[in-house]
């Protein structure tokens, strides 16, 4: 499903020179596999997710998702790929405040095929327990509810790979479990591969496979050069 080989990502520094944040010789995820990626803050976890989602371009190396080589795609191609293949759950939810819950879910479909399936949007909200709040704005929902809407939105485009960036970091412990259950169960039921970044071992223990970033990235956290 996902194959990364010799991936290097460097950023230009304001004062000149380059900062290498990722050097991943090999990393793979099989179809419908669920992987937790743990690591310290500043280790490049989010950067790795952005690269896999095509939101950043790699400096060198190869990223193949569902047999599509991302590093050869143009920016437009990566936009299309992301809309069709990737679901993304952010740590800070990132719901659009101008739109209701159901509209946020529909946005997840809009930029993919362009075809909006209202029935599926409502069904997804039902699955995350928010059917009766479909027309609520994000500021009318609790933090946990907002993250549920974000999960529904990530699933809306029927992705093949769901990337979740510390989705429980900003929700209370009581909600964290249910958010985690929701992501894991939803991906399982729809055969979606899942890569969840977390720094919590409690969260990582729920996964059948746990990877440490320092094991796959040659650049140590906070000592990147």
């Amino acid at each position, binding site marked *: 499903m996902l194959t990364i080989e010799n991936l290097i990502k460097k950023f230009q520094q304001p004062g000149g020179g380059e900062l290498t944040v990722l050097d991943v010789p090999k990393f793979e995820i099989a179809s419908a596999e669920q992987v937790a990626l743990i690591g310290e803050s500043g280790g490049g976890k989010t950067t790795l997710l*952005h690269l896999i989602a095509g939101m950043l371009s790699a400096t060198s190396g190869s990223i193949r998702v569902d047999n599509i080589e991302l590093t050869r795609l143009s920016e*437009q191609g990566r*936009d299309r790929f992301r*809309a069709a293949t990737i679901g*993304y759950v952010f740590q800070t939810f*990132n719901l*659009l405040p101008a*739109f209701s819950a159901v509209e946020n879910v529909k946005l*997840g479909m809009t930029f993919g095929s362009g075809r909006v399936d209202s029935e599926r949007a409502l069904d997804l909200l039902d699955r995350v327990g928010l059917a009766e709040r479909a027309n609520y704005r994000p500021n009318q929902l609790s933090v946990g509810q907002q993250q549920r809407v974000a999960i529904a939105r990530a699933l809306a485009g029927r992705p093949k790979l769901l990337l979740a960036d510390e989705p429980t970091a900003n929700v209370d412990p009581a909600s964290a479990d249910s958010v985690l259950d929701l992501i894991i169960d939803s991906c399982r039921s729809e055969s979606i591969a899942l890569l969840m970044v977390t720094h919590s071992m409690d969260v990582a223990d729920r996964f059948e496979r746990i990877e440490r970033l320092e094991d796959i990235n040659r650049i140590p956290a906070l000592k990147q050069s």
Partner: protein
Amino acid sequence: MNLLFIAWRNFRYRALSSFLTTLSLMLGVGLVVMVMAIYGIISEAFVRNAAVGYNLVVGPRGSALQLTLNSVYYLSQPIENLPYTEYMEFFPAEERAKMVREFGGDPKLGERDGVYAGFVGDGYAIPLALGDYFGEFRVVGTIPDFFEKLRHGPEVDQPFTFREGRALETYNEENQYFECVLGSRVAAQSGMKVGDVMNPTHGDPEGKGHGQGFTVVGILAPTGTPNDRAVFVNLEGFYLLEGHAKPIEDDAVITLPERDPDDTRPPLLMIPEREVTSILVRNGNIMHAPGMQNRINESGRAQAAAPIGEINKLMSVIVGPLLSALLVITLITCVVAAFGVLVAIYNSMNDRRRDIAVMRALGARRGSVTWVILFESLIIAIIGGAAGWLLAHVAIYSAGTFIEQQTGVQVGLFSVSQFEWLLLPFVLVLSLMAGIVPAMAAYRTDVGSNLSA
């Protein structure tokens, strides 16, 4: 869910900012539409007021525009006066002889046709004598034909009608030569009614009275022409007012008028004592007008002006540029309002960079987020433009009665002026241009850095 819907939601989400931006554009567009409408109303009023049935105004030599202004619009000062004999040149020998018999004068005048009589044919020549005032309103000495033969209205086919009373008569037992008719505005403003006596003043609104009043016998229905603000008096009565008789020259040849010994009417002025300020002429065959105009202008004694031509010149030389300048200023307010759209959207870009990055993360292309911003600008333009257009038309329509009273121009709720249809595309293009800067900012929004922030 399409990009337009996303833009609409953004527009609604920033309700106060959107409302204020739209309001400023609405006021700008409303102002432009109103100026355009006023431009149209003034143009139409000027042209329609110049089209009152006659095709030429004949007066003393001088400024043709001044002649038109004082004889058609009752504005400005009369240039000079013409001798009555100039007026007689528009009549055949038979009528000229009748005038000599009735008023007294050189008998030779009645022995030939008037120089321009052949040009007039079945048309008419109506004399005007100006110089007196009733308050701020002009007193116009004329003959009953003025009310019978002149026409007004959009098609120049409506005869004068009287809201009260009747047209003045040359003579009757009751009022003798001293009858007058009030224009509708004069009556409304002065409060005078039929049966009252109007006392004109000589020379200017503050001038001294003549000591002779005219009985009001009629009040005209509104015509939307300058006639609404004029007082029409019987020409013969006008002549009989103190100081209105021209001194007779020593070498003048005069035959006294033929009068029945039992005739108790006061004697009228003789032809050498009479003057007219101008003559309104309608050629029976309009093809004769240019020839007659040339003949009069070449005579060296008088000039003939086509009122519509003079008014068009006035419009193109003075009024037109003034209104154009006003239009340009209001268009600039539209540009300023569009600049406000730019500033409002651009200022909101800081707040929405994250939203744009999220849309990009969900698969939106750079072009899509660019169009969302441009659509938002278009929404402001469409709502602001349409509301401004409607506001201006409602305002103009609300003032419709007043406008009609003042100018005679009827304005419907959706009466569109000449170039008004260009305004909405202009505003749309302007707003699109205003949207380009923030749209480019949206285009350049970096996904990674804005999501990590």
